């Protein structure tokens, strides 16, 4: 049989995976995955750029590790779900526009544009996120701001999409996938077979999302470290913890007369490394939890920042600006919010897992605070400044 090639029409696609019963369920799951990504991403954004009303707790110490782990892993799960959903609705790409009815045509055009924005933005977030965790940046834009902006596009376009599809989605979601026994027994046939194939497609999509998570979750879930073949980071590294930025990359040269400066409104103090080491030390198990979703715990030993401030006679319970020896770069300084600055687990660490910090880990001393992104755990600290 020879058929003349032509542009397909939606009716040409007869596979059960194209049923709205499947589309709506995949849509729902995708909504959950992107919703989790957006919520946790927004938290991470606010932790790094806190608006005045925002506070982030210091306990549990693993809180940021968990939220950011959820962020990257729900993004990974969304990859197969997005592809499954797009396969499910692929026939609708070929819906012919109602050319002769201007009002319906413009509604159709608007809907198509909003769906295009949604698909563009969804792909963009997953692709750029995936490259970012591998620290690969084959593009010209600045990843954090672009990824943040497009996150709003995804969420906005998704809300518009749900507004348009709500009647179809509600009808589809309230129709059970499995036909009732009696009906099935009475009329076994095409419908029955379709229903089982629809369920198989959904089951497979969910299963593949699970496999994708398993294949990567080792970046942050300790007991999966050895299981996940595609975890972008292992937990190993010098002194037991991976390093994102080496002393060489940050062009750090520790001066021989290095002293820690402590500055507050109306006073200043400074301590040598020997002074710091002579103060009462505290050891705490805290994670380095990177924005890239990987995390690893270590035993850090050092002086609590709050104890250091008290000893110097500086006010406590205020935000503290922590400045590095690093002279340029985005992460040369960070601000500890007041809750973190007065937490006794917020350390100026001198040792990691029982050894002196290596230069790559921030020698002579580094900040390590509970429940914060790794980029804010400033290394090679030179100065603490109590803000007003």
């Amino acid at each position, binding site marked *: 049989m020879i058929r003349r090639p032509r542009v397909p029409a939606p009716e040409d696609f007869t596979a059960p995976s194209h049923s709205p019963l499947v589309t709506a369920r995949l849509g729902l799951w995708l909504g959950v995955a992107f919703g989790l990504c957006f919520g946790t991403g927004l938290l991470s954004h606010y932790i790094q750029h806190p608006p005045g009303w925002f506070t982030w707790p210091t306990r549990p110490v693993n809180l940021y590790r968990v939220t950011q782990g959820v962020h990257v892993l729900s993004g990974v799960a969304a990859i197969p779900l997005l592809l499954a959903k797009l396969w499910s609705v692929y026939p609708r790409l070929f819906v012919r526009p109602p050319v002769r009815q201007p009002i319906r045509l413009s509604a159709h055009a608007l809907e198509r544009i909003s769906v295009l924005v949604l*698909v563009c933005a969804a792909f963009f977030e997953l692709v750029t996120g995936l490259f970012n965790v591998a620290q690969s940046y084959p593009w010209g834009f600045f990843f954090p701001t672009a990824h943040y902006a497009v996150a709003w596009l995804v969420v906005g376009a998704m*809300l518009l999409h749900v507004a348009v599809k709500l009647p179809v989605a509600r009808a589809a979601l309230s129709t059970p996938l499995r036909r009732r026994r009696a009906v099935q027994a009475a009329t076994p046939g095409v419908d029955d077979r379709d229903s089982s*194939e629809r369920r198989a497609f959904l089951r497979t999509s969910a299963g593949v999302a699970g496999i994708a998570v398993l294949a990567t979750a080792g970046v942050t879930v300790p007991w999966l470290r050895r299981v996940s073949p595609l975890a972008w980071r292992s937990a190993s590294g010098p002194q037991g913890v991976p390093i994102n930025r080496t002393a060489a990359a940050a062009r750090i040269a520790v001066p021989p007369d290095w002293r820690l400066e402590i500055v507050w409104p109306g006073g200043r103090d400074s301590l040598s490394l020997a002074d710091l080491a002579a103060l009462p030390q505290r050891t705490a198990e805290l994670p380095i939890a990177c924005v890239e979703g990987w995390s690893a715990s270590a035993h850090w030993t050092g002086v609590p920042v709050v104890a250091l401030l008290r000893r110097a006679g500086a006010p406590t319970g205020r935000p503290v600006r922590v400045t590095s020896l690093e002279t340029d770069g985005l992460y040369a300084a960070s601000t500890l919010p007041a809750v973190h600055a007065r937490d006794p687990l917020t350390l100026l660490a001198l040792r990691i897992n029982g050894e002196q910090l290596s230069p790559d880990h921030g020698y002579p001393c580094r900040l390590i605070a509970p429940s914060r992104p790794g980029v804010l755990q400033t290394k090679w600290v030179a100065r603490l400044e109590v803000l007003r």
Partner: protein
Amino acid sequence: MRAVRLLLFVVGAAATAYGGSLLLPQLGTAMPWLIGGPVLHDVLVAPLVGLVGLALGRLVTNRFRRAWIVAGLMASATLLLIAVPLLWRPPSAPPNPGLPDRDYPLGLAVGLAVIWAAIAVVLVVAATVDRRVADRRTDRP
């Protein structure tokens, strides 16, 4: 439902507009990466998936077996996609010592091997069970 839809429209339009305004300064450089996904998908990936599906429908007529093969293909494609940034490292990437710190090609190969081995086991077991059932039926007087 009308009120809910209206609310979704308003909030959705506002969030989209906000995202667009945030993206505006970088729109030029981001554009190829925005458009690339749907274009690649719609003109390349989806037709390919359709063709593979059609071919599979002809080659494998047992629906149970076909479902498992489809599952294997979907899982393999997903793992391959996730591995792309780990395997392909364009020179524009900044130096990052200690990363990638694993043998990803090996990990990917092992992952794919495990998936297909599991599917092979399922299919062999199912085929054996089928044969037993068929044998018992024909044995009956």
